[in-house]
């Protein structure tokens, strides 16, 4: 147990600094491990090998430094204030997700009772930032991309939320720490040695969550909004320099955050069998990190494997398949919860 007692503002400052460090840190880790290295190896390449000496680990940090050095360009017809604000809104929604993600029994910025509800609510804030970016850019590609992104994010928000409802019903709480405890203390048919990770009972919900998360991140099978071959870069077309860096960090920071939520909801979060008591606070972040990387691996594995959906296919999957399946999943979970 930590023997340091911090007053409120000190604790708040410390939490803010840690979350501020997590976003670019996780973006760099996710970007390097998956975008640069895993994708390269899946395509029989090596990826960056030179920067930093060892397997190009410095590549993304160097890219970041380059972005910061660039000129701040705003198109003359753009709505300057909205244009400048949009990346901040998108990044802020990523920041806010971390407020409720627990990395240990006590290692959580704010253990809200409505934790998962809050996380999903703030994660959909990014739609507003995306629409702002597309509208303010005064560019037809940006606007088209932003509208596509809005249509897609709203469509996939539903299966994402509905998939989570199953977990909430089973756990009986919306607090993320409560959900982890429910998994840690749960048992499968009387066998409780490794708890009851909800990925077993909620496998349908897990698959739905991963697919919907993929769409929320506008990653490749669902990358219609930023489809390079037809829309340049969608709503990011007019952005360069550090404003683009914001979008980039938000993309990979959100990938990390959604993977963290998936790991917490379905894989038991910071819980690992055998670790109890005060040790959990130290092992927690590592365990959670490992699980996040596992989920992120699946997300990026799909990204590098599947080709892009057409716009109508994309909407069909959400409305005709994912949402009905998630509704059935909720009903089934509810019935089983009452029955057992």
């Amino acid at each position, binding site marked *: 147990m930590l023997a340091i007692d911090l007053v409120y503002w000190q604790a708040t400052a410390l939490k803010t600094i840690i979350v501020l460090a997590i976003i670019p840190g996780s973006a760099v880790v996710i970007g390097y491990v998956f975008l640069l290295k895993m994708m390269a*190896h*899946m*395509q*029989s*390449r*090596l990826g960056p090998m030179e920067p930093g000496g060892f397997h190009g680990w410095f590549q993304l940090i160097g890219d970041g430094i380059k972005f910061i050095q660039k000129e701040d360009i705003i198109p003359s017809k753009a709505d300057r204030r909205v244009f400048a604000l949009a990346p901040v809104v998108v990044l802020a929604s990523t920041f806010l997700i971390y407020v409720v993600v627990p990395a240990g029994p006590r290692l959580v910025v704010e253990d809200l009772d409505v934790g998962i509800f809050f996380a999903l609510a703030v994660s959909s804030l990014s739609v507003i930032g995306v629409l702002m970016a597309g509208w303010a850019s005064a560019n037809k590609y940006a606007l088209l991309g932003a509208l596509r992104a809005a249509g897609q994010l709203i469509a996939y928000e539903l299966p994402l939320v509905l998939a989570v409802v199953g977990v909430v019903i089973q756990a009986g709480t919306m607090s993320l720490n409560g959900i982890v405890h429910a998994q840690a203390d749960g048992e499968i048919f009387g066998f409780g040695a490794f708890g009851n990770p909800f990925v077993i009972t909620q496998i349908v919900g897990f698959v739905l969550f991963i697919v919907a998360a993929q769409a929320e991140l506008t990653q490749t099978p669902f990358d219609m909004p930023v489809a390079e071959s037809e829309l340049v870069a969608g709503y990011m077309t007019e952005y360069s320099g550090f404003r683009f860096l914001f979008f980039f960090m938000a993309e990979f920071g959100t990938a990390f955050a959604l993977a963290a939520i998936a790991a917490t909801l379905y894989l038991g979060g910071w819980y690992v069998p055998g670790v109890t008591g005060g040790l959990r606070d130290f092992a927690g972040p590592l365990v959670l990190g490992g699980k996040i990387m596992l989920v992120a691996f699946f997300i990026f*594995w799909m990204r590098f*494997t*599947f080709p892009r959906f057409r716009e109508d296919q994309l909407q069909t999957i959400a409305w005709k398949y994912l949402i009905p399946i998630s509704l059935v999943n909720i009903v089934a979970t509810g019935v089983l919860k009452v029955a057992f």
Partner: protein
Amino acid sequence: MPDFPGKGLVKGLGVTFKTMLEGAVTVQYPKEKEAPPTRARGVIALKEENCTVCMLCARECPDWCIYIEGHKEKKPPRRAGGKPRTVSALDRFDIDYALCMYCGICVEVCPFDALFWSPEYEYSESRIADLLHDKDKLGEWMATVPEPPPLEAGAQKKK
């Protein structure tokens, strides 16, 4: 594998996963080098003593990148009492690799086996003029020319 919906998707994931574990095909060039095939068209080598200044290569060269100059010399007769022989001596034999397009016609037309392909490829220069290889430099490439492949069984020996 039996049929089920999404089989193709699973197969696709399998392909990328397998490729990931197989390792990259990249060759990290300056650090590790791929041995070019022995018959690769890297650079043209000159065997000066075989050259008779016949100019066939220079004339057949599609982009005129071979420069030859020579003169006639009197050599002592082969048999006693005979006339002195007239022999062509090579003064200059340059190939401008800034122009060469590696068609290999010069190597093909050379009637006296004075030109050879070498698989050597690392002779880039920072000044374009340095790509003009003179006859000494072309002669140095002879060391890198691989042995000709062995003759097939029953093939006629060259006289």
